């Protein structure tokens, strides 16, 4: 491994781990209604939002009211965005004369951005006007991430409060998420990205004549402002079709590093927030440690597989070793300016978190690296995961881990001093089963239904991977595309749209129900029969449960997809 790659990988993992404490401490102040350094500048705006919306900021909600608010708000956002996408051709700020989307594409796209998936069955620059990008998509980038943050904080309150009915106020949590967390972080990142060359303008596209005399159209627009929240909010919807591989979105190795770091920043910080809310920061460290273990394993697989490259090329006489001026390994589908290490960091970050931004063609990854990216998604998007959704997904696994530990050693299942009962376990399993059934049902139909198969570009196990990746990406609310699948067809637009809804809301509802159930419980002091959840043993148990429950569910289909493709590649097969 080149030393520069090793330094880059270690620096990235180290910075993510180090950022958890300061970011989590700041988040704790925000959601604890404490005064932050931004209150002098933004406090008046927060109060104005409450006055305008008629929100009683001191009022608490039961979990039912909280869930109802999430659902109503999301439905209203869907309708607004759907209408905007349909009529964008008649609205201003449309210098490229982009026409309105078709009904099924608008259905798919509106759901994608409301559910924080940001799956794009359209080409960013030619499918959405500037007005749509700013008023529709960037707005959704903020509020859908805000919904995820709010639900995570409500879940954490439910687990850590004692004998209470309320789990917070959704409207207050959403407002604070956007005003004190997402907006300032995104503003700073957007300015940094613009300083590195990410474009930000409202001008029409530039038409130029190349040195060869050909005419070329250079698309541009308000990119930096969308790029920042795209990463920080783990949204992932690119301004351009090439997403973060486009030099106007991600021009330098530094921006690549910062964008990948931004993807994991808030999910890492949320673990420390949880520890502080639990009154024991070690509880948060355990979650962070489990995430880091799984992340480093994934990063190692992706990097190692890409560094090794395709043996068929070696057999054909190509030299895949790295040297000065030559990256070596598998560079197909990668940007030369990012190389293998930068691309591996981005691939693993964007799939471990439910971001979905891409700086390389995932379809061109080696089978094991592509399989690892898919595995990150189907684990439930809990390896850092989405903003908020990563924390509440990991906490669902923590509840299951505690229960399994209780079954194995005869100890009382308790988490944070509260007994885990049959109701919480059923709700936790409902949440996980919604994800896993959603992925497998959509992928299963896609693998046998003729019109769905017509969209698949490759034969054999690689074709199955393309189908499985699309279903996983939608239900996991990731949004990245493997490529090789023509997604803008009625089957995929509607099927993946439904999958995104299932993955988002049929997970959030049981999570909030668990929060409501746990909030009303009283804590009991730890006894010799209590399984400690703040030490290294629980990290191992949690990782084991995630791998067993999450990964083995998908082992058969992975065996037929990326694993088989890897074996055939070693035997000289291509697809």
């Amino acid at each position: 491994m080149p030393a520069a790659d090793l330094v880059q990988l270690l620096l990235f993992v180290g910075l993510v781990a180090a950022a958890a404490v300061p970011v989590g401490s700041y988040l704790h102040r925000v959601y604890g209604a404490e005064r932050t350094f931004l209150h002098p500048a933004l406090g008046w705006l927060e109060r104005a939002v409450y006055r305008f919306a008629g929100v009683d900021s001191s009022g608490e909600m039961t979990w039912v009211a909280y869930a109802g608010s999430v659902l109503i708000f999301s439905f209203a956002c869907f309708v607004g965005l759907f209408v905007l996408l349909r009529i964008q051709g008649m609205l201003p700020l449309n210098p490229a004369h982009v026409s309105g989307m078709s009904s099924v594409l608008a259905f798919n796209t509106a759901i994608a951005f409301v559910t924080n998936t940001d799956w794009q069955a359209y080409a960013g620059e030619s499918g959405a006007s500037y007005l749509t990008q700013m008023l529709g998509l960037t707005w959704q980038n903020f509020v859908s991430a805000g919904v995820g943050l709010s639900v995570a904080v409500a879940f954490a309150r439910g687990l850590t409060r004692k004998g209470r009915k309320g789990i917070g106020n959704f409207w207050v949590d959403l407002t604070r998420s956007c005003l004190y967390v997402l907006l300032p972080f995104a503003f700073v990142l957007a300015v940094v990205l613009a300083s590195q060359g990410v474009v930000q303008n409202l001008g029409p596209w530039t038409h130029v004549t190349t040195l060869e005399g050909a005419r070329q159209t250079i698309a541009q627009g308000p990119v930096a402002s969308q790029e920042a929240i795209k990463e920080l909010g783990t949204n992932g919807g690119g301004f351009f079709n090439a997403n973060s591989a486009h030099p106007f979105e991600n021009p330098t190795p530094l921006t690549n590093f910062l964008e990948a770091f931004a993807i994991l920043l808030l999910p890492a910080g949320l673990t420390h927030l949880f520890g502080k809310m639990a009154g024991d920061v070690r509880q948060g460290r355990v979650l962070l440690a489990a995430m880091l273990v799984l992340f480093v394993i994934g990063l190692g697989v992706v990097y190692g597989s890409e560094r090794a490259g395709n043996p068929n090329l070696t057999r054909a006489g190509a030299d895949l070793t790295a040297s000065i001026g030559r990256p070596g390994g598998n560079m197909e589908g990668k940007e030369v300016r990012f190389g293998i290490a930068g691309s591996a960091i981005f691939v693993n970050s964007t799939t471990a978190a439910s971001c979905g931004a891409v700086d390389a063609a995932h379809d061109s990854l080696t089978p094991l690296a592509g399989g690892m990216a898919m595995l990150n998604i189907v684990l439930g998007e809990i390896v850092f995961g989405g903003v908020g959704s990563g924390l509440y997904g990991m906490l669902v696994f923590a509840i299951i881990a505690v229960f399994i530990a209780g079954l194995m050693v005869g100890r009382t299942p308790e988490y944070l001093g509260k007994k885990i009962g049959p109701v919480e376990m059923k709700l936790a399993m409902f949440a996980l089963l919604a994800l896993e059934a959603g992925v497998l049902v959509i992928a299963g139909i896609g693998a046998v239904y003729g019109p769905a198969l017509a969209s698949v570009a490759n034969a054999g196990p690689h074709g199955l991977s393309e189908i499985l990746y699309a279903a996983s990406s939608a239900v996991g609310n990731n949004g990245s595309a493997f490529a090789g699948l023509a997604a803008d067809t009625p089957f995929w637009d509607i099927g993946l749209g439904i999958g995104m809804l299932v993955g988002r809301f049929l997970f959030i509802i049981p999570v909030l129900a668990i929060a409501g159930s746990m909030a009303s419980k009283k804590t009991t002091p730890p006894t010799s029969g209590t399984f400690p959840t703040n030490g290294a043993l629980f990290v191992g148990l949690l990782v084991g449960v995630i791998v067993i429950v999450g990964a083995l569910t998908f082992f058969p289909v992975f065996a037929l997809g990326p694993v088989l493709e890897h074996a055939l590649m070693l035997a000289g097969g291509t697809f």
Partner: protein
Amino acid sequence: MWMFADIVAVAGAGAFLCLCAAYVHLAERMVSDR
């Protein structure tokens, strides 16, 4: 121009909202019957 497919799309999302409301109701009963 509004098309039948637009109405179906919004109604479909609305139907999913109703499904979620029913899910919330069932989960509420599970929690309160504990």
